[in-house]
């Protein structure tokens, strides 16, 4: 299976996958450790992400997955999607559907993902476009909270550090999980020319500003002690916004975020399809059905506060390995061995 992507499509896919389910939840864990330095910690990590993007762009031709690394990535992405599903279902049952059986919710939204996944790959590539107007709406709603923000909450920097302060840097990497798909998808670009630094910088600025807005708004809206109690600060902020056209703005946003997360799952499934079905395999639809069924059943057993808390604390380490460390290792090893994507394609043809 193969596809052709434009630069814009590549960045859209990455944006949805990198913001997907993390966007509503990661602010409180950074702030819990980094306190008022959370914004600075996030900016430092975002610069590392930008340098990594530049590195990926220069060396992407050496990112060749062998069967071992392919299996590792497929397991990691499957785990990541399972965590997505657990978290989405937990949020839906907490905020909107407390009485609906979790298996029903999972079945409904995973069947949508399955349908999108067995459609033409272009469906998964372009479906993210529908989110763009919703994200603008979301930003407008967020700006309604400005009168209740306390800018002084952002200061002082580097003052009341606690023992786990450095963990803020670790958890800031949550925002950039999924960066590895850049090197996975890079070879599918229509014209295999260099992506200009300007485009990479634009993407980095957009993603960083989008996340920075959520961290700084959370810091300015809540007191430090309060935010530690609030697992979904963005939803909570919208829950407290009063508008005349809707009783609960948070429900409106939960639906936006749900569609956003579903598109992220569809995009992850697309990346997995591209890696897994690179070789022709039998019964691809059945295999995908089994994949989504396993994800759904596993997730349904794990929807518990304690499981989510554990995942929230430790998933980040897998993120760092598969997003930052492993791609760099793979690139170095292949560079030493002289293996490139184009050579692999020649040998397979």
């Amino acid at each position, binding site marked *: 299976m193969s596809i052709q992507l434009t630069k814009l499509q590549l960045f859209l896919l990455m944006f949805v996958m990198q913001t997907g389910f993390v966007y509503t939840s990661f602010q409180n864990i950074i702030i819990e450790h980094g306190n008022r330095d959370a914004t600075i910690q996030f900016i430092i990590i975002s610069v590392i992400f930008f340098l990594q993007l530049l590195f990926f762009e220069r060396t992407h031709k050496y990112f060749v997955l062998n069967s071992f690394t392919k299996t590792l990535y497929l397991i990691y992405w499957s785990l990541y999607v399972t965590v997505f599903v657990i978290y989405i279902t937990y949020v839906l049952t907490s905020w909107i559907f407390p009485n609906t059986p979790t298996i029903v919710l999972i079945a409904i939204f995973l069947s949508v993902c399955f349908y999108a996944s067995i459609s033409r790959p272009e469906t998964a590539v372009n479906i993210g476009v529908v989110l763009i107007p919703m994200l603008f709406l979301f930003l407008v709603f967020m700006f309604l909270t400005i009168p209740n923000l306390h800018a*002084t*909450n952002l200061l*002082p920097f580097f003052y009341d550090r606690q023992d786990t302060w450095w963990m803020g840097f670790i958890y800031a990497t949550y925002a950039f999980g999924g960066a590895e798909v850049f090197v996975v998808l890079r070879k599918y670009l229509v014209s295999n020319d260099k992506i200009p630094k300007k485009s990479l910088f634009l993407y980095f600025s957009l993603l960083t500003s989008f996340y920075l807005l959520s961290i700084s708004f959370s810091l300015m809206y*809540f007191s*430090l*002690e*309060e935010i530690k109690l609030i697992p979904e600060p963005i939803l909570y902020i919208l829950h*407290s916004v009063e508008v005349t056209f809707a*009783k609960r703005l948070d429900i409106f946003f939960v639906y936006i975020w749900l569609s956003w997360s579903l598109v992220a799952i569809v995009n992850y499934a697309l990346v997995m399809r591209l890696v897994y079905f690179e070789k022709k395999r039998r019964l691809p639809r059945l295999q995908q059905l089994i994949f989504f069924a396993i994800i759904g059943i596993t997730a349904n057993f794990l929807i518990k506060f304690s499981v989510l808390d554990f995942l929230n604390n430790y998933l980040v380490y897998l993120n760092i390995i598969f997003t930052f460390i492993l791609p760099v290792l793979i690139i170095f090893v292949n560079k030493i061995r002289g293996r490139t994507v184009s050579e692999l394609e020649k040998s397979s043809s």
Partner: protein
Amino acid sequence: MQTIIITGIGISPRDVRQDAELKVEQTLDLSVLSTVLISEDSAKDDIYEYLDGYFRDPNSPITSKLAIIQGDLKPFFELSEQKQTTAGEYYERFITSLEENSLVIPYTLQTACAILFENAQDLALPYLKMGEDGRPVSDGLALFSGRAFTGSTLNTNEGVMLNILNNSLGFATRISYLYKDSPVTVRINKTKRNLDISENKIVIDKKLELMVSEYPQDHLSDDIQRKDLQQFLTEKIEQDMNEVIKKLQEAKSDALGLGRGVRAFHPKYFKKDWNEHFSTMDISVKLSVEIVKTGILE
């Protein structure tokens, strides 16, 4: 419309609701909660104990208003039986109107909760009492220190001063004085606040732009007369503001959030027990007033 008041007993607000539900054929729906009234006796303990359930339940609208009640709560709810409205809606409109006139600081359940968890600012909630004619009356602001009501209150005029000092002006903020045996009423047009902070001293540098709403002596186009009035207003307002600060310090209640500025820009002067430190600091207001509008008369 007929309103029935149901009472319940329990160890927490949720438990009280459950007890009340035993007496009606319906389930009480929190999604239409518009006001939470807390008696002053209850508020003298940690009020978060009573509010946690509202924040935890996604169906609970955390934009509801909050007020402290003098005396027994029951007569405040009996109002529903006399009026074509529920007590919750009535108090929501009542508190909104107080906010619009800058008599109380606008807080919702959520913004009040953020202050309860904040050690650099304290709450000042609307304080209501029952008037002699059986109508609820605003009696100013109930001052909190940490999460508990101190028992100290600001009267309505002091409430206006607090709002001006806090830059939390409503739709209309008016102050009236007697000047040369004649009334003068001014409306605050614009306000600015700068803090001059040192280790044990804060000077609140306040600038006000005023619009004259009432001044039967007229002739404000006369420079001498206008400057004399400005001087009078500066002295009176500054004096009133300093009295409010003194009351806040006595109550150990930093309702202005001066601690936020100290913590952000002079963290070495910020103490963990901020309320105690705040009460011992030398805090004063330095005011400058300018009349920028005189209405449609001069």
